[in-house]
């Protein structure tokens, strides 16, 4: 495996050492180890080398290309779980079943962060954060997960070798390992969404911001000879489409007039684990005071 030029390994380590300041020592080592073991870097990485100024409030978009992002208004969210089910059905995410052997193997691209035992917080919808500085992409040894130029952290299922580095690297636990070939009853297979490939056993899978819907939309606007508007995308992903309270809003963070970009400027807006420097593109609008996974630490 040590066939790659030494300098690219260094690049890789430099690249991760920047945001790693905010990570715990363990996570840092995890990332470092991943880079060292693989010793291989895909060519797709180089493009996003913007350094995240630590602790500074900064928009994730660079103002040029589209940057897809999401805003979730916790004041509107009632925790009904529509988004979770919509995501499962749209993306052919398998259910787990009651077999004790399968304990802990559930896959929820969109999940609900449970209430804390102290009664704090609330059920919080948790999709992939689609970080602008994604730790998962950096550790993937085979370039199976990558960031599109529009900011989506996507994955090619067929290329994944199931090493689970990305699952470890993700500070939000938004990646799920597919422990076995999904088993649907024969009749359920008829309901599978033909736009989304099912995943084999042994790969890691995650939320894609419903990239297939974006693709379809692009084809549609091309046919209609027009540009994508904010109205087209505001409720584009399955979770946003189903949310009864319209708590989930999708759109282009680089478009200053888009709703998602305005919401991300709200004084109520915050992001999860901001201090680790991942620059997530999912913004939460707080109910009363800012809540986050890291409230205790900060």
């Amino acid at each position: 495996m040590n066939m790659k030029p030494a300098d690219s390994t260094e690049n890789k380590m430099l690249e991760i050492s920047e945001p790693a300041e905010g990570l715990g020592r363990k996570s840092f080592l995890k990332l470092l180890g991943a880079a060292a073991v693989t010793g291989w870097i895909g060519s797709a990485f180089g493009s996003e080398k913007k350094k995240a100024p630590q602790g500074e409030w900064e928009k994730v978009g660079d103002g040029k290309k589209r940057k897809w992002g999401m805003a979730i208004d916790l004041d509107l969210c009632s925790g009904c779980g529509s988004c979770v089910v919509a995501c499962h059905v749209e993306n052919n995410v398998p259910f787990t079943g009651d077999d004790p052997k399968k304990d802990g193997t559930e896959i929820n691209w969109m999940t609900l962060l449970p209430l804390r035992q102290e009664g704090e917080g609330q059920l919080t919808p948790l999709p992939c954060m689609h970080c602008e500085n994604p730790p998962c992409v950096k550790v993937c040894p085979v370039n199976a997960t990558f960031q599109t130029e529009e900011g989506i952290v996507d994955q090619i299922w067929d290329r994944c070798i199931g090493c689970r580095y990305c699952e470890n690297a993700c500070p939000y636990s938004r990646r799920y390992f597919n422990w076995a070939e999904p088993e649907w009853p024969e009749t359920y297979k008829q309901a599978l969404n033909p736009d989304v490939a099912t995943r084999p056993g042994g790969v890691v899978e995650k939320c894609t911001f419903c990239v297939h819907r974006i693709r379809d939309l692009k084809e549609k606007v091309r046919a209609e000879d027009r540009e994508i508007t904010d109205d087209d995308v505001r409720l584009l992903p399955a979770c946003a489409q189903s949310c009864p309270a319209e708590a989930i809003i999708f759109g282009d963070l680089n478009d200053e007039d888009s709703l998602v970009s305005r919401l991300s400027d709200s004084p109520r807006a915050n992001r999860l684990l901001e201090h680790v420097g991942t620059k997530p593109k999912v913004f939460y609008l707080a109910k009363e005071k800012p809540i986050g996974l890291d409230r205790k630490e900060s």
Partner: protein
Amino acid sequence: MSQIKGKPDPMDTKALSRRNFFKTSGALAAAGALTACFKRQDPYSISQDKIPVPGSDKWYAGEEKTIASSCGQCPINCGIMVRVVEGRAVKINGNPNSLLVGGKLGPKGQTGLFTLYDPDRIQSPLKRDGERGSGKWKEISWEEAYSEVAAKLGALRNNSESHKLSVICGRERGFMRDLLERFCKSYGTPNFFDSLSTNDGTLFEAMELMMGSSELPGYDAANSAYILSLGAGIFESTCNGIHFARSQGISRRENQTRRTKIVQVEANHSLTAKESDEWIPIKVGTYDVLALGIANQLVKANLHDMDFINSYTHGFDKFLSVLEKYPSDKVSEITGIPEKDIYRLTWELAGSKPALVVVDARSAATSNGLEIARCALALNALLGNIGRPGGLFSHKSAPVLDWAQIKPDTIAQHGLQQPALDGRGLEKYPLANSVVDAFPESVLSGNPYSTEALLIYYSNPLYTKNDPEQFKKAFDKIPFIVSFSPFMDESTFSADLILPDHTYLERWEDATPPAMGPNSSMGIRRPVVEPLYKSKNTGDVVIEIAQALGASVGESFPWKNFKEAMEERMLGLYNARNGSIAADDPEAFLKKLNKLGAWNDESAPGENFAEAFKTPSKKFEFYSQMAESKIRKIAQGKKKSPDEYLRDIGKPGMQSVCLPHSEEPTFTGTEAEFPLLLRPYKNITYAIGSGANIPYLRELAGLQKGLRAVESWRSWVEVHPSTAEKLGLERGDEVWVESPIGKIKASVLPTVTVSPSMALMALGSGHTQLGRFAKGKGANPKRLIPANIDPLSGLSPRFSTRVRITRA
């Protein structure tokens, strides 16, 4: 690529179908790495091409449609848009034309696909072939099935025993309910049972007594400035919880000038309490006292809406005499709410117009449910919030036509003159319209007569009713039971003949929505895919059976099929000419309706109170004249004074019963022996059990409680950590939950949000049938709850027993 062709040869595995081609190339385009693996289709992806679909020859490869219809996963009937690809339904979204959902859809609706594609559906008519409960069935043809039913029911009628047929119908509204009721009337039986979800019944009854309505109250929550929820699960279990969530979304998002304040009064810090702006804990089942206490303060401070009360209400002076009995110190003592909070709530309610007091089935789940519902309605009336924007509305039903009157023949008339099995409207249950919980008792005692045949539609009493064992015993005594369920649920398993219905994605039907604020609307449900199996629309089946029976029964069902019967009534919408669909002729109207999926009338509701209140006084009745006349009549028959009679059935005197008053909730079991109150609750996902065979909903219910997916298939009992500590129990410990009538196994889930006096259990698990995903998973809390029917309302409260928890 050829345009119109059949499906690719399933044997030709090398065939790259158009869809797979797009799937693969699409993924690659997104990846921007088209060269990487262009040559093959994804070998791991499950291909749908090999799955046979009925009617797929009518679709060309890759053809896709979005069909408007209506959801049937719960009684709300939200509008849906179903994405159908090559004859397969692959996604359900909300229908933007539907006022109920406006393009959104809750979790239950999203999983409709798995109702359609359930692996354990009943595929053809079945006849029992062996002992009852042996699970041995013989497939029969529809013709055989019809002749069998017609022979049995015909014989009963010929013997002038038509009243010995009972029908249990689980639909609260809609044409199918009307069709079955019509069948009963023309056949000649008074025994048509509404199997209401137990505690909605209290609201239906309160609405009938006070507003003359036969629907649930319609809350215009989106336009309210202030919502006081008396324990209602407005973001969880309320029948239109998704509607509430959506209203709040609209109000909080778009209303820049004010924010609707939601105050949740409830013993537990529930999900709704969490989503509300304020949570006020209260002692169990004392909402009626609180409502009367607030009403008393309103009147004392002269904050009530005198204009409304003078013009549109009846019996206010009598109600005043009740209010005097609820001074704030006494109310505070009973409810456990500090006096200052009672004053504050009073002033907040009066100061923010329009303010709304909300109750639902969850508030009214105790034995005094009817009183809770009535007191809350009375409080709304005092505030003058009835029939006004942001207030409470009685149902404005869509202007559908009625079917022609039936003319019962002599046999039918004879049958209809018999008293109903359950003693509804008689001395036992004077105010009830139907007492399904009394059904087992009557069947078992054979009093006033035996039951020879039973039809079950959309109902599963052997699972959903309190103390289902009693129902099982009753079923064993009935010689002929027919079920129309497409699923092998507990009741269907105990039937003799199964005539499987289509699922809601395969049939024509109306989709009558519940009351929802000031607007009226109507939806339509249509087949979005070809029927998968040899099932049939029960509407068609009932018409066929009626025609086979002939005589007055056959004459009452002159239609070719249910679709024709439905369209006949739908034309009322065309005749009204004021809704969202304009058309030149009836045919064009129906076409448009089918295409759009919903008809709405959002014309300003006005304040036509004469029309809104269908009570004897045509006013909102604090003092219910209907209750008075019913009770008087019965007491006269018994040659007693009304007060005496009421005392006999354990109720306070006439004056109190006709007015909203408070009663102490009763619980089975003593506190010493059974220290905890069992609070069975409906969760948002599988309600009282009908969605328990959908894996996604099971796992979502667990997710909302912070359980792992595998854990969510078991039953759990939520107790306060202090309770768990006292019992020496930890999370996940197996325990027996034991009530005076039974015990079930569950695992402990200590939760801080639960009141220390209670044990919470989600309804819906513990099926003994209902397919592979429901059978034998968890335990049914209904087995712990005795029937305890309230003599006035005839309803069996759900929150009415005490339990103890012991290590298993």
